C-alpha cells in the first residue's frame, strides 16, 4: 500500500467511528422495525411492540404528533417514522423496505403498491391538502399569484414525479403559467423544496399549504385561488406483511391506521392545516 491511500494522518482528531456506530444503530432500529420481540405472550389483549410507518414528507409534523398520541394511548408501543416523498417511499417499499404502514400524499403511489399486491386491506383517505406559494418573509419580490412566478428568478418546485411536483405542474397549467426549467430547482420532497426558499436563494416555491403553515414566520404565504389550486387526497394503508413480520406488528399496524382515521386524529390533523377527507 502506498502512503497515498494511507489514512494514518487524519485518524486522530476525527470522531467518525462514533458517528458510524450511531448511524449503524439507527439503521438497525429502522430495519428491525417490523420484527420486534413478541416472544413473551402479551399479558393484556392490547397491542404492543414496534411498527414502522412510511409517511409523505408533508406529514412530518402531523405524524410525529400522531405517533406520540398513539404511543401515549397504547403503552408498550413504539411507532418508528420514516419520511420522504411518497414516490421515494413507495419505491423503497417495492424494493422490500420493511414498513408496516404507508401514508401517501397522493393516490397514484398507493395505487402503484396495490397493483403489486403489497397492501393488506384497502387504503382509506384520512386527510386532504392543497398547495400554496411561499416566498421569503416580507415577500420582497412582491409575488402575489402563480403568474408572478414566471419571471421572478429561481423557483423551487418538487421533482416532476414527486406528488407535490405533479400537483404544482397541474396548478401552473390551470393558471396558464409556464416557468422555464432553467429557472426551476427541484427538491426531492416537499420539505427539501421548502428549504430551498427558507435556507437557500430560491425566490419562491410551491409546496403544500401545511408545509407553509409549519414553516411559520420563515416564509410568507401566498394563497392560490381554488380555481387554480389542486386538492390532494392522503390515503393510508396497512402493508402486506413481510415474511418475518409478526402478527403483533400487523395488529398494531391496523390499530395505527384506525387511529389515524379517528376523530381524535382528525382534530390533530386540522391543527396542522390539513383538510378533512371529502
Amino acid at each position, binding site marked *: 500500500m*502506498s*502512503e*497515498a*491511500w*494511507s*489514512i494514518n*494522518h*487524519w485518524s*486522530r*482528531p*476525527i*470522531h*467518525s467511528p462514533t*458517528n458510524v456506530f450511531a448511524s449503524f444503530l439507527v439503521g438497525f432500529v429502522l430495519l428491525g422495525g417490523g420484527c420486534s420481540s413478541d416472544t413473551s405472550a402479551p399479558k393484556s389483549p392490547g397491542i404492543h411492540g414496534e411498527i414502522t410507518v412510511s409517511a409523505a414528507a408533508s406529514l412530518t409534523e402531523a405524524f410525529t404528533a400522531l405517533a406520540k398520541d398513539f404511543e401515549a394511548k397504547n403503552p408498550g408501543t413504539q411507532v418508528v417514522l420514516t419520511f420522504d*416523498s411518497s*414516490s*421515494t417511499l*413507495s*419505491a423503497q417499499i417495492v424494493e422490500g423496505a420493511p414498513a408496516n404502514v404507508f401514508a401517501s400524499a397522493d393516490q397514484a403511489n398507493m395505487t402503484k403498491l396495490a397493483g403489486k399486491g403489497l397492501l393488506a386491506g384497502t387504503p382509506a383517505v384520512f386527510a386532504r391538502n392543497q398547495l400554496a406559494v411561499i416566498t421569503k418573509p416580507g415577500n420582497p419580490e412582491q409575488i402575489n399569484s402563480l403568474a408572478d412566478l414566471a419571471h421572478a428568478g*429561481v423557483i*423551487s418546485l418538487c*421533482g*416532476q*414525479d*414527486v406528488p407535490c411536483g405533479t400537483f404544482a405542474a397541474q396548478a401552473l397549467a390551470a393558471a396558464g403559467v409556464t416557468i422555464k*426549467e*432553467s*429557472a*426551476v*430547482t*427541484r*427538491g*426531492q420532497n416537499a420539505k*427539501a423544496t421548502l*428549504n*430551498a426558499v427558507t*435556507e*437557500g*436563494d*430560491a425566490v419562491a416555491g410551491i409546496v403544500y399549504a401545511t408545509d407553509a403553515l409549519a414553516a411559520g414566520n420563515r416564509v410568507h404565504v401566498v394563497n392560490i385561488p381554488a380555481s387554480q389550486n389542486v386538492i390532494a387526497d392522503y390515503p393510508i394503508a396497512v402493508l402486506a406483511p413481510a415474511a418475518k413480520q409478526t402478527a403483533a406488528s400487523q395488529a398494531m399496524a391496523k390499530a395505527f391506521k384506525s387511529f389515524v382515521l379517528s376523530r381524535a386524529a382528525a382534530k390533530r390533523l386540522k391543527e396542522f392545516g390539513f383538510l378533512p377527507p371529502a
Partner: protein
Amino acid sequence: MNRARQRPPVAVVAAALLAVGFFTLPLVGLLQQVTWSNLAADLTTPEAAEAIRLSLVCSLAAVALAAAFGTPLAWFLARSDFPGRPLLRGLVLLPMVLPPVVGGVALLSAFSLRSPVGGWLNNAFGIQLTFTTWGAILAETFVSMPFFVITAEAAFRTIDRRYEQVAATLGARRTTVFRRVTLPSIAPSLAAGAVLTWARALGEFGATITFAGNVAGRTRTLPLSVYLALEADRQTAIALSLVLLVISLVVLVALRDRWLSRL
C-alpha cells in the same frame, strides 16, 4: 519473497472474502437491473447527456481548484510548525466526515445571497453562486478537496528532503527547488490525490443539491439526475448510475496501477 508466499490464515481469507462480497453484491444487483438493449437510448436522452456533460465540467473544475489551492495548503500543513496545526488539519479534513447536506447548509450560510460574503459578492460583482454551475463546482470542491490535501500532505512529508537541500546548496532558488525537485518527486502522489478528488467530486450529491440546488443544465449533475429519475424513469437512473460506476472504476483501477504503485 518466501514470506509473501506463505499461505494466509483461513480466518483472514474468510473475512476478506466477506468484505469482497459486501462490496460486489450491490454492484451485481445494480448490473442485473440494467436493460442493456436500451442502454444507448437511455444515455443519449437530452437530460442524460446534459447531466453527464455537467458532471464532467463540475468535477474537473473541482479538481483544478483543489489542486491549485490544496497543494499550497498541504505544503503548509506538512512543512510549517505552529501550535494550531492539528486543529487546522482537522478543519480541513472535516468535509470528509461531515454529512454532505450539512456541508451544503454551511455553504449556504456563507455564500447565499443573504449571507455576508455571498451578499457582498452579489452586490459588488453581481456574482451569484447558488443555482449556478459555479455553485455546484464550489460544493464539489468543498467536499472533495480534503482528499487532495491529505494525499499531498503525506507526499510532502515523506519525500527525502536532502535532494531539496542539495539543490539549494547548489544555488537553486526556492521556487526552482520546488519546481524542479519537490514537484517532480511528489507528482505521482498529487496525481493520485487528484484522481481520488475527482472520483469524490463526481459522486457528490448532498452538498450540491443543498447549496447549488437542482436546476436542469446548471447544477443537475449525474447523481442529482439519478435521484430525480429514480422513481419515474428507473431505467435512465440505473443507466446513469452505471456510467458513474464504470468511469470511477476504470479510473481508480487504471491509475492505481500506473501511478500509485510507483510510490
